[in-house]
């Protein structure tokens, strides 16, 4: 019985790899990052409508992370800010991840929603976001 217990504990310990990506300085969430060339946020946003539905590798500093569950984060690259959500909500960011550099592989999408303007008229708002399939988050804070 104790051998089974030892085996179970060993499997658990070795199964937990700390979310590392093989790169000791970063944590990897979701799928492995397969893209090599980084597209900056400014390039992504420069031709927004052409990039919708395409998959990219981009990076930025995580400036805000959902404090309820870690289900979204805002990244900033220069002056550009972008919201990142995660494919099928299959993984989440650590809530204390703000300030860390994030490398994100995902799809660029456009969302629309109904809103009201100052006069109370219904208007259609649109915003752009990245649906990430994989995120590499540096362990150290970026200044």
């Amino acid at each position, binding site marked *: 019985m104790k051998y089974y217990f030892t085996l179970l504990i060993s499997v658990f310990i070795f199964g*937990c790899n700390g979310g590392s990506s093989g790169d000791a300085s970063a944590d*990897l969430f979701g799928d492995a990052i397969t893209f090599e060339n980084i597209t900056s946020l400014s390039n992504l946003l420069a031709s927004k409508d052409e990039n919708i*539905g395409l998959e990219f590798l981009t990076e930025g500093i995580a400036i805000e992370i959902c404090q309820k569950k870690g289900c979204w984060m805002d990244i900033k690259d220069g002056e550009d800010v972008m919201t990142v959500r995660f494919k*099928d*909500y*299959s*993984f989440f960011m650590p809530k204390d991840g703000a300030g860390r550099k994030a490398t994100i592989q995902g799809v660029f*999408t456009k969302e629309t929603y109904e809103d009201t303007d100052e006069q109370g008229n219904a208007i259609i708002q649109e915003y752009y976001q990245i649906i990430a399939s994989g995120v590499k988050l540096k362990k150290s804070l970026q200044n």
Partner: protein
Amino acid sequence: MIMTSIILIIISITGIVLIHEHDTHFFSRTRITTSILPPQYQYRLDTMRQAQGTTSSFQKDANSVPLSWLMYDLHSGTFFGKWAWIYYDLISVALILYSISGIYLFIGIMKPKSIKKKEC
């Protein structure tokens, strides 16, 4: 009674898994095909993909849901239907009562009893 024990085991295991979801890649990368799950999972996945605007992307994942969905549903009871939460609540309340009564009994045992002198 056996059903309650099985559900308690499920709640405990899924609880451990959810606590350690950031410690391993296994649960964030593993997906389960919707063909072996209740039909509402495919509907939920389609709705999610539509909401995220990824219906034409990530095609290899179009018919599989993240393992974490299943873990949350098993842990919260929603996997067993919309009324399962009542059973989960009853189990939880019973566990709280068992714990309180256990503490009460333990304190009762530990309390030094007054020794009565035998009357001659």
